[in-house]
């Protein structure tokens, strides 16, 4: 395709992405290198309905003057990335020097918000992603054998976990797993432990989040695999049968290799989405037991009264870098495919 034609075809899409994603991303990246001006404080007397007191307030006029001189704030280099809320080099160094065993160092590391979040994020990503692929394939293989009359409703039902708004879906499940809810009470009976609470124990909360993650993402991989199954060439399957392959062997050596590109596609999207997981933590009110990188960003922007844009920006950029690292194998594969196609 000619450069010129290509340009006109891609222009609207590219313009939208540059305007609403690329430019904001660049500005976030720049902003994360700066911190706010030193706030000029003055002592004033505040009075309210309850009492008067003398406190510090920001002298907005003096601060505005500083703001005018350098609108971005004070240049801080990569120090925001290195501070305690992020990579915490200093604290990690101290912990390394002061701890005797690796286990002790590890628990010091877990005391730092970024590493705590990173560990859960990675666990979640690497447990949920493969299981979603496997379950999706299993469900697709099974649904494929459903009599055609029932296929439509079965597909709709299979998609339900993905299409209901997570806000309410997770809220209901959160109540079901409550110690007094249907699932929580049943589990208590099964394990014969009246004090069992999914919400009170850290390992159980992790398991609950992971199970919810698998449950809500399986429909995505199911629908992709189900579609892929329709294209598996019947001749190849037949040939395998004639050669005496069992069903399992037919799936293992014919269906799965044929679906490899789909596996890559699903893995790619799932790695990305799971790495950015946030909603389950909020809906299950699990932030005391498990935090993710996106939760840190959420907390910086929405958790308190004062949004911390610089800190959130730094975490966002690190999320992007994390996703890029996760995706590298896929990128290399696509690059090879692409070059093969050009050749």
């Amino acid at each position: 395709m000619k450069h010129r034609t290509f340009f006109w075809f891609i222009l609207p899409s590219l313009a939208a992405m540059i305007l609403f994603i690329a430019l904001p991303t660049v500005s976030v990246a720049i902003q994360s290198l700066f911190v706010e001006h030193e706030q000029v404080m003055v002592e004033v007397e505040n009075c309210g309905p309850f009492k008067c007191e003398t406190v510090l307030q920001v002298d907005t006029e003096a601060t505005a003057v500083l703001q005018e001189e350098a609108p971005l704030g004070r240049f801080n280099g990569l120090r925001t990335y290195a501070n305690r809320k992020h990579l915490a080099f200093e604290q990690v160094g101290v912990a390394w020097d002061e701890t005797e065993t690796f286990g002790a160092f590890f628990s010091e590391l877990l005391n730092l918000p970024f590493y705590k979040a990173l560990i859960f994020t990675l666990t979640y990503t690497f447990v949920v992603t493969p299981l979603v692929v496997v379950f999706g394939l299993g469900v697709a293989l099974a649904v494929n054998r459903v009599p055609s009359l029932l296929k439509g409703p079965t597909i709709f039902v299979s998609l339900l976990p993905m299409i209901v708004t997570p806000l309410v879906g997770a809220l209901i499940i959160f109540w079901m797993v409550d110690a007094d809810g249907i699932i929580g009470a049943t589990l208590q009976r099964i394990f014969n432990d009246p004090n069992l609470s999914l919400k009170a124990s850290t390992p159980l909360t992790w398991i609950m989040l992971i199970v919810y993650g698998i449950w809500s993402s399986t429909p995505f991989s199911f629908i992709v695999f189900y579609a892929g199954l329709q294209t598996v060439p019947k001749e190849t399957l037949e040939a395998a049968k004639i050669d005496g392959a069992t069903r399992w062997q037919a799936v293992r050596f014919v269906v799965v290799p044929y679906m490899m590109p789909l596996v890559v596609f699903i893995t790619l999207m799932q790695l990305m989405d799971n790495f950015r997981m946030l909603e389950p933590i909020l809906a299950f009110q699990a932030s005391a037991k498990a935090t993710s990188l996106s939760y840190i960003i959420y907390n910086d922007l929405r958790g308190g009264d004062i949004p911390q844009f610089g800190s959130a920006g730094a975490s966002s950029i690190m999320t992007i870098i994390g996703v890029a690292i996760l995706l590298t194998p896929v990128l290399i594969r696509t690059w090879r495919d692409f070059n093969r196609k050009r050749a």
Partner: protein
Amino acid sequence: MSTSVADRRSKGLIWFTTSFVVLWIFIAAGPFIWTLWGSFKVQPDFFSKTDWTNAIYGVLTKAETGSAFTSAGYQGAWVEQEFWRNSINTAIVVFFTVVISLTLGTLGGYALARSGYRYAFWLLMLALVFRAMPHMTLVSGYLLPFFEWNIWGRLSTTIIVLVAINQPFTLWMLHSFFLNIPKDMDESAMVDGCTRFQAFRHVIIPVMWPGVITTGLFSFLLAYNDFAIGAVLLSSENQTMVPKINSFLGTVRETGDVMFAVAAAVSALVPLFFLILFFQRQIVSGLTAGAVKG
């Protein structure tokens, strides 16, 4: 599956697949059947701290309303809280988001699939990295310019943002669909004297629908279920369904009307049910064509 393969299925396998499907349906649909049933109860029954079986039998619902079922949640959401306004807003947002995303996406995806130059690859990769940006951060960045340009709060602004944020996924998916359509088709049209755009219009458009519809389903779900963007970019009269549902859930200092939220969420599923039944065939044939290429 061909019949000869089916013939050789053992009884055990049939038993196994059937029970697997039944189990899956139970897992996938269980919470929603529970929700649907519970949406006709009063809150102390559905979220019962006393005994979860109350949600099934509606003990307090009976005590409060005289019947084991009540439509108070639906009444409250749709009549008292005028949830229909929010559904109209959602309908507008979803319709335009899907149409615009797909228009931009087909043009761009087609170009990416047909260009052999390296920059096409890098553009695709860049789009993927763009997709990694947490929406929360992006939205916070939009606020100030949107207020300054006086475009905050409008449906059109939200639509454009949703389109842009969804573009990387749309481009990727449609690009793989177009890779599956043989190059010879449009190239022979161009040999016959068509321009690139004419070839696209007369040769490609007629055969691309399955892929477009599948991609459209995902755009639809994104716009339909969007919370992060609509919640901060829309003024109250333009609010869409999900932020409104969230507003039923109460604040730090107040409990909310949780049953309104449950009823509203159940109602929100109805159009999706018909949509999926209607497009079921296309969804399947669409994904077949495209996603195979990854």
